[in-house]
């Protein structure tokens, strides 16, 4: 594997050419081999793991914004969020909710942030999509964002700029009337195709029993209303947090 430390111009060109002509699977394999989070997932790198199932791994961040800062990492290598299938993203958000509950209950904090940096300008450091769950306390100066008021014209401009693309992605037609007939999600043929065209990859080879309650898939496929599986003892605590708003 060891490459010469410095490449001549010719060698660099040849390497670039090689990368360009590399079959996608090969390129993907190369990407994974160099991905720190793939290494963590495959146990090739030490981490303070909290939880693991077939889809994702939860670990403490090594450069935490606060005590208990968690990373929720899909096992599959997706560089950026648009590559993440809806089902995986939905699952990861449910895991984030469960861990937010755990963090609020056990670490005596007064809030949590879910944070995703998508793209390097947005602060994404590694080429492996992941979700941050950050325990928060008032005045801790984490994600301290200044907000401003924009006028109605600006609001309209944003709507107009984004709506066509959004409706296309949602698989809906633009409504005739602005307000009465809001678009609703229908069967997006587009999404089905997208998912069907790529061979589905297994997320993990080793089966692991989920540590948390049943995965959401099981709950919903049962054709019964999904049930919240968290114990109720934390209710008081969560209500307290919700009540702060009143």
């Amino acid at each position, binding site marked *: 594997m060891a490459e010469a430390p410095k490449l001549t111009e010719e060698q660099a060109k040849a390497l670039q050419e090689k990368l360009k002509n590399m079959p996608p699977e090969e390129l993907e394999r190369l990407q994974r081999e160099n991905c720190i989070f793939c290494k963590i997932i495959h146990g090739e790198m030490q981490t*303070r793991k*909290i939880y693991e199932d*077939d*889809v994702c791994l939860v670990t*403490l961040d090594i450069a935490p*914004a606060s*005590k208990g800062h968690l990373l929720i990492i899909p096992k599959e290598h997706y560089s950026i*969020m*648009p590559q993440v299938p809806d089902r995986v*993203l*939905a699952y990861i958000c*449910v895991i984030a*909710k469960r861990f937010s*509950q*755990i963090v609020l209950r*056990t*670490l005596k*904090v007064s809030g949590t*942030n879910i*944070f*995703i*940096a*998508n*793209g*390097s300008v*947005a602060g994404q450091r590694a080429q492996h999509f992941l979700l941050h769950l*950050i325990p*928060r306390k*008032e005045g801790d100066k984490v*994600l*301290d*964002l200044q*907000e*401003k*008021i924009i006028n109605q014209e600006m609001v309209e401009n*944003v709507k107009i*700029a*984004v709506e066509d*693309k*959004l409706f296309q992605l949602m698989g809906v037609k633009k409504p005739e009337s602005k307000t009465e007939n809001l678009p*609703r*999600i229908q069967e997006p043929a587009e*999404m089905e195709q997208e998912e069907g065209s790529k061979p*589905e990859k*297994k*997320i993990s080879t080793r089966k692991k029993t989920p540590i*948390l309650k049943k995965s*959401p898939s099981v709950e*919903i*496929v049962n054709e019964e*209303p*999904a*049930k919240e*599986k968290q*114990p109720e003892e934390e209710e008081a605590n*969560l209500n307290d*947090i*919700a009540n702060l*708003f*009143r």
Partner: protein
Amino acid sequence: MNLTSQCEYCEILRKEKNILASSSDAVVAVRDKVVTPGQITIFPKEHYPIMEMVPEEVLQQCAILANKVSIAVFESLSSQGTNILVRNGLGAGQDVAHFGIEIIPRKEGDGLNFDWKPRQLMEDEIEMVHTTLLEAVEESRSSPKKEEKRDDKKEIKIVEGKENYLLKSIKRIP
């Protein structure tokens, strides 16, 4: 006096103002209070103050919408990235008592800074947090199941086409 009467998001829903799109349980809207123009918010139609109260299937809908909005923002506002943010609880900077996901478009040199200074923690502090969280996960696995009471209207309707694709995609979770 109703709790939802003072809620900015419930107000948006009631007035049907500045709404971009909606699904059966969630709404995509443009707020006038933003970190940067182009910011878009996704929230459940039902008034849930914090994430822990949002039923899982509603949260999943919000997440799927967030991904679509993020892609739409990428392509139509010529942004080079997005930040996805949930401020959950007062301590986390939540200013509307109604759960929501914010999609913030990013550009080179936009002056925004979401970076944090890594907290220097002592080895034993890290060890303690690790143990505490591991124990909490273990506890949540071994505690007896309790079924939460749910409103009938929030049941997933299997028959309706518009729900089906969500279910189908969820079923594919291994």
